[in-house]
């Protein structure tokens, strides 16, 4: 599964993307965030407060409760501020 990070999520983690293979117990985006947090101090800093995170699964915006079984790409980022 390909992960993409944007804005301060990307900066805190220090990576724009990475490939991971989470175990089957990681069912949703929220589970994924909790599973990723201990990977590094940067991940921990980025994922401290899941309420400040938004996500896209295969490029569609989704709630963090969305299942991730079978998806190819998950993006994790702060609320958008365009326009």
């Amino acid at each position, binding site marked *: 599964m390909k992960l993409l990070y944007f804005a301060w999520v990307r900066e805190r983690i220090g990576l724009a993307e990475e490939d991971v293979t989470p175990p089957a117990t990681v069912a949703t985006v929220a589970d994924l965030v909790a599973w990723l947090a201990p990977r590094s101090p940067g991940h921990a800093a980025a994922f401290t407060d899941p309420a400040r995170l938004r996500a896209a699964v295969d490029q569609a915006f989704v709630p963090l409760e969305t299942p991730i079984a079978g998806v190819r790409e998950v993006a994790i980022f702060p609320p958008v501020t*365009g*326009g």
Partner: protein
Amino acid sequence: MIRVIVSRDAIDIADEFTQLEQGGAVATFTGLVRADDGVATLELEHYPGATEAALTRLAEEARARWSLTAATIVHRVGPMAPGERIVFVGTCSAHRAAALEACAFLIDRLKTDAPFWKRETVDGASRWVEARATDDHAAARWS
């Protein structure tokens, strides 16, 4: 005609109007980098691929809902100076109310539905701009 552009280039208003003018009524909205609160530069990050798809979906939704003859969304990415145009939204319809409403819809929804993030440099310090709850409210009134 749907026109969606995500680019580092400056927005050419005259050219955008030429492309939009496909009927009797044209409405536009343009967002500029604020020059009034000490912002020295603004940098726009986006999610390549997902951005263009999100903007195209929005433009298609507006075209169907208001019977538009043309809808344009141009959004800049990368570094920008105060006073520069960040975003241009334009709609064209046979009727002015349709063009005006569709234009308001597009800019409200773009603020909440498209993956852009702004980073400002103010007084030498760089920070990510926080999302505003008022944007969610503005977008919600269209659903």
